[in-house]
């Protein structure tokens, strides 16, 4: 931060962090008591009591004006890890690890430990002025909360699915089928809803009073705020716009997302997994959905919220948002790679005086490689998939349904492919026909 020294920032955030660590301490104390009193697991209870006491000490230190922070080297490492390639590949790897190890991390104690680790990591990171500036921005506070909420719900669903899968192995019915009795709308449901409504209203009131609405200067058509961010739930779309033409990223791909979601009942041939959580019985659907939701939506929202700074450059969480950060991002179209880089010629350029037909032919000649690649991708890959990895699917689904599914999957994969191509090869467009607003 300019104009504010590190010490000032620390003293500003210290009282908050004191309360924060105190909250962590009490949270763990409650957990320890619960384990000891209700579960009779004295050893676990002792561990969490010790952790809780430690948090009290940390809280005291924070209140006293010296909250623990991260050393410079760790911060630099984190900044480096959140570079685009490592970030996107890393989140995908994390997703795979979470899938493989799901039986391990859904255990309540493991999940509780992970939660504590992330909360403590939050706390020690907040000492950094740049990190604090990002996460305490009124716009971003609820998103931080949402990230934790998402973690909780992912854990909940996975835990239930793992339990059901274990039961299925022993030949037992899923837990949802055990208590099959219906619940009455009145009073059961309505009371629950009422309580939720009251609690949520109270929360909103507190929130509205505590966090000022982030109002900005009056809108002007000639001045765009820098960086200019969409509402958080659209940040995935905004991220998509970085890699695609507005037509593709703003119209075609979002509509395809909706069409694809609507087509699921038509495409799904797996009769299992109705009305209960399971992973084993619906592996393909589960993986595709988790990838589409967690990877292509959530991580992009997080990237857009926390890592996109001025001029829409990517900044690490501990990096100063410098509007003059210089990044060499010379993006090159595939046709330029081919004609200039490979053939060593100038791009074929349609002359403005030529007939429309000859202009179009010149453009097609210029873009032939990209066009061939895209056509191959969408036309040749599905039969190839049907013949190899998706053979069983093809047999079960039939031609039409399989083609639809394959193309939807390919469109889905097109986004991460393009992102990685952009970051690694600086590839701008595979087909670039700006003359007709046609870029892919």
């Amino acid at each position: 931060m300019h104009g504010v020294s590190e010490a000032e920032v620390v003293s500003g955030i210290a009282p908050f962090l004191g309360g924060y660590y105190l909250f962590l301490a009490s949270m763990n104390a409650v957990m320890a008591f619960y384990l000891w009193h209700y579960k009779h697991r004295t050893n676990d209870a002792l561990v969490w009591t010790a952790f809780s006491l430690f948090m009290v000490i940390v809280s005291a230190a924070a209140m006293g004006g010296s909250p623990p922070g991260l050393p410079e080297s760790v911060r630099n490492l984190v900044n480096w890890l959140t570079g685009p390639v490592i970030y996107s590949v890393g989140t995908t790897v994390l997703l795979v690890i979470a899938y493989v190890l799901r039986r391990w991390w859904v255990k309540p104690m493991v999940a509780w430990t992970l939660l504590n680790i992330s909360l403590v990591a939050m706390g020690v990171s907040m000492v950094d002025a740049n990190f604090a500036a990002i996460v305490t921005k009124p716009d971003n506070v609820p998103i931080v909360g949402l990230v934790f909420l998402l973690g909780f719900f992912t854990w909940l669903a996975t835990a239930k699915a793992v339990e059901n899968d274990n039961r299925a192995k022993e030949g037992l019915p899923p837990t949802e089928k055990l208590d099959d009795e219906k619940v009455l709308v009145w009073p059961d449901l309505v009371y629950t809803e009422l309580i939720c409504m009251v609690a949520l209203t109270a929360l909103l009131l507190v929130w509205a009073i505590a966090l000022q609405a982030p109002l900005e200067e009056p809108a002007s058509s000639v001045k765009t705020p820098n960086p200019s961010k969409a509402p958080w739930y659209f940040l995935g779309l905004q991220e998509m716009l970085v890699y695609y033409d507005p037509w593709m990223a703003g119209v075609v791909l979002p509509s395809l997302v909706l069409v694809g979601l609507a087509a699921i009942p038509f495409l799904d041939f797996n009769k299992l997994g109705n009305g209960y959580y399971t992973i084993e019985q619906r592996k393909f659907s589960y993986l595709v959905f988790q990838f589409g939701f967690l990877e292509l939506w959530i991580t992009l929202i997080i990237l857009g919220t926390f890592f996109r700074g001025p001029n829409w450059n990517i900044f690490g969480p501990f990096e100063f948002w410098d509007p003059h950060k210089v990044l060499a991002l010379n993006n090159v179209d595939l046709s330029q790679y081919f004609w200039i880089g490979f053939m060593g010629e100038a791009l074929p350029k349609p002359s403005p005086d030529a007939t429309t037909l000859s202009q179009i032919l010149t453009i097609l000649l210029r873009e032939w490689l990209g066009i061939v690649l895209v056509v191959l991708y969408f036309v040749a890959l599905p039969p190839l998939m049907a013949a190899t990895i998706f053979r069983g699917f093809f047999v079960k689904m039939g031609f039409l349904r399989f083609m639809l599914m394959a193309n939807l999957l390919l469109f889905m994969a097109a986004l991460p492919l393009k992102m990685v191509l952009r970051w690694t090869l600086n590839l701008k467009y595979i087909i670039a026909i700006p003359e007709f607003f046609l870029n892919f």
Partner: protein
Amino acid sequence: MAEKKKMSVAEILAAARKTDGGATSDEAAPKSSDAAEAAPAAESSPAPEKPAAKPAAKPAAKPAAKSGGGRPSVAEMLAAARAEKQGGAKPAEKPAAAKPAAAAKEAPAKKPAPAKAKEPVAAKAQAPKDTGSILAAARNPSKPGPMTKAEAARQAPAEKPKPAAKPVKSKLTVPPMPAKPDYAKPKPKAAAATTTDRRGFLTGMMLGSCLGIGFVSMSTTFGLWLLGTARFMYPNVLMEPPSQFKVGFPSNFAPGQVETKFVGQYGVWIVNYEYNGEPQIYALRTVCTHLGCTPNWLEGEQKFKCPCHGSGFYKDGINFEGPAPRPLERYAIRVADDGQLEVDKSKLFQEEIGQWSDPASFVAV
């Protein structure tokens, strides 16, 4: 949870028995098929089980009538069953049906139904019920509580109130379609009056004219609205800055300079730079060719940079980074008669279709 509820059902049933106990102490059991199932007391079960071949008798109406059309007591039902045994060749389908009184009343009118129909009824009587239905049934026998599908399927044959009109659909029992009683037969439609008499003609006219007036006025209103909307597109006063304006003498612009002071008012950068090696002054439109944000001129990096998705443009307007597919657009620019530069925003020049070589798009220096 389930057990708790079951407990409370028992209590409620007891309570229900108590309230009914004023008249007959054991009336609660057969008061509806639901209740009968919940507490499959010995009293009620003989009724459905026995009558496999029981024919209904006319006297059956009597005991039912005694209870005033309401719920019959067990004693009454047993009596009815006994009477059926003795009686003629007309069996009653459901002694334990929801409304035995009604069933008994209709009995004389009914055609014989096959004895088979009874078996599912008996089976149903023992079928377990969930608490919600029982609770609701205990509260109000005429409104059975919510049911699961499975339950509804089990119960469906038992709860048909008028089996004569609607034969039971079940795999086990396929009774022949009984003849419809008179009241259930469709009434022959009154022959439509095909001739229009004078009064009918008058009403028709009045009605027609009302509709006519309505529709005409409605479409007139909509038409006027449409016209008003069209008028709205041509406001009396246009608060837009003129599309032609002067920006000063060419000598005001140093070579290599990007003049940003006209952005606020006119949305244009005046640049004195070069294109294809030819030095020239041109007017760039401040609209990103990606999605239309306003890029910023970064003097330090000598580039236009868009804050929305990071497109970057060189000083000559050519796109080089980020997603923008085309270079920035140029406005027409010329030297006016007084020697000042004049920008005309009504004309655009796009590089990708070769329009920047048009002499109207720049002023050579």
